[in-house]
């Protein structure tokens, strides 16, 4: 119990000091921000994937809807960073919530396929709806706005924006952490472990998977919105199925049975991307190689492997 608090303390201390130490090890603040954004998206996905047992192959859709929600709000509605984030999160989250019921009866591969199909649906809508979304060229013409605290105005330069993302990350992970320790979270894990058994207990399994899917959609949408602000840009690639696959890879890399696994996965994935892409255009084949090695050698992901070692030691 105590060592858990120590580990959490170290984790948050490291996250709070990223702008100081990351440049010392060859990184830069924006890379840290991107890690948090991807980690948040993958942790949202992992609520469904790792803790409820539903493989979604279309989570980029909710990520992208969050991104376009933010971009369009800033561009057309109001120049307000908090409002844009709320709208983005709602757009993606509500879309996931509404689609949920049509997905819940499907299982396994069929579940993955139908989430993929819905994801692609949104992708094509955004590509075709040229005059609003900017089509294939992506959405430009918006910038994240300074935060107003009464009379005090905080401009969101790179470091300040990192802390805004960290704040959102903290709130979202705290909510997910509380949920997973609650009876609701226990029920999700029971469904993952043995859906039939859970059903025989009298648990309306489909409603619970829906709840997980919806919450997971909100979290991923928030991450997408933050990403649009990070780049002051979003494009249809943010809804594309390849990105859905990246989220799954990040969760599996880090360990989908561990709460913080996707964070570890995002660090590995983005660091590899950042470093390898400066060496070779074929960096993706190296990511693939890393992924294969992790799946073969540590089927529970990096963090899962460390935990097993700790338990057997």
């Amino acid at each position, binding site marked *: 119990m105590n060592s858990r608090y120590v580990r959490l303390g170290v984790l948050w201390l490291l996250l709070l000091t990223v702008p100081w130490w990351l440049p010392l090890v060859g990184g830069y603040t924006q890379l840290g921000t991107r890690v948090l954004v991807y980690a948040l998206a993958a942790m949202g996905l992992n609520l469904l994937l790792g803790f409820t047992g539903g493989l979604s192959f279309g989570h980029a859709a909710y990520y992208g809807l969050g991104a376009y929600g933010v971009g369009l709000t800033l561009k057309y509605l109001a120049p307000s960073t908090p409002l844009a984030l709320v709208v983005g999160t709602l757009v993606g989250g509500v879309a996931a919530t509404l689609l949920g019921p049509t997905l819940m009866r499907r299982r396994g591969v069929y579940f993955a396929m139908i989430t993929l199909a819905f994801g692609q649906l949104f992708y094509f809508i955004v590509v075709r709806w040229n005059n609003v979304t900017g089509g294939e060229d992506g959405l430009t013409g918006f910038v994240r706005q300074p935060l107003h605290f009464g009379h005090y105005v905080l401009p969101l330069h790179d470091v300040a924006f990192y802390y805004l993302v960290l704040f959102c990350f903290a709130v979202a992970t705290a909510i997910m952490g509380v949920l997973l320790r609650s*009876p*609701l979270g226990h029920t999700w894990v029971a469904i993952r472990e*043995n859906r039939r058994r859970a059903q025989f207990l009298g648990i309306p399994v489909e409603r619970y998977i829906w709840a997980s899917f919806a919450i997971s959609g909100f979290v991923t949408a928030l991450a997408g919105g933050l990403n649009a602000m990070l780049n002051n840009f979003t494009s249809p690639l943010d809804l594309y199925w390849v990105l859905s696959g990246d989220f799954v890879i990040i969760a599996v890399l880090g360990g989908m049975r561990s709460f913080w696994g996707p964070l570890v996965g995002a660090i590995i994935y983005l660091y590899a991307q950042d470093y390898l892409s400066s060496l070779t255009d074929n960096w993706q084949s190296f990511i693939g190689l890393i992924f294969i090695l992790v799946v073969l050698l540590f089927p529970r992901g990096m963090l899962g492997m460390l935990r097993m070692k700790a338990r057997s030691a």
Partner: protein
Amino acid sequence: MSLLRLQNISRSFGSLRALEEVSLEMSAGELRAVIGPNGAGKTTLFNMVTGFFPPSSGTVWFADRAINALSAERRTRLGIVRTFQITEIFPDLTVFENLRIGVETAARSNALPWMSRARRAGLERRVDELLAVTGLADKSERVVSELAHGDQRVVEVAIALSLEPKLLMLDEPTAGMGDEETDNMVSLIRRLHDERQLSILFIEHDMDVVFGIAQRITVLDQGRVLAEGTPDEVAADRRVRAAYLGEAA
């Protein structure tokens, strides 16, 4: 008062008539065994009671209420709880976590996103009670997939108990067990019946178990009730000996 009453239950699967005009009455607090050769319709009978399939004809009564129209989930909440021939547990969770799911379900708190410390402690005490009753206390923190088969079966019974059943139905509780594990399960069933007056209906192939603990026995053969009575009566029944125990009539 009868707790469970089956009235002329029939069930066919295509041209196969799995149950034909089966009637059975079980009183509260009874420990009843259902025996019969393979294919006699024992598990189909269980499925009629738990609601996995509806009967083709006939009525199932539980506590003087016709329950044909109720879903399996509703029947579970009424207190009809079963275990399975193939062990159904939550493999990667600990024994404690397995039972906690059941206790939270019984308390209808599955959907709660948060729980007060006091309430949580209350539910965990209930888990500890179940661990004590079933003799699993020292294995509480073990992951169930790593337990021996016999212990996994006990975990399954404990999950069923966590739902606070009025009628506990066990489908071959000692299947695949060694002698020691069987003795352990038998004494657990006996304890649940003697100390808690729990009504238990069980399917079993091990005749030592059946004649050792059952108060009454129902013998099924080819989808019909061949005989019913106390162990002595059933053992003396000539048709049973002929059809089931393999003696010439």
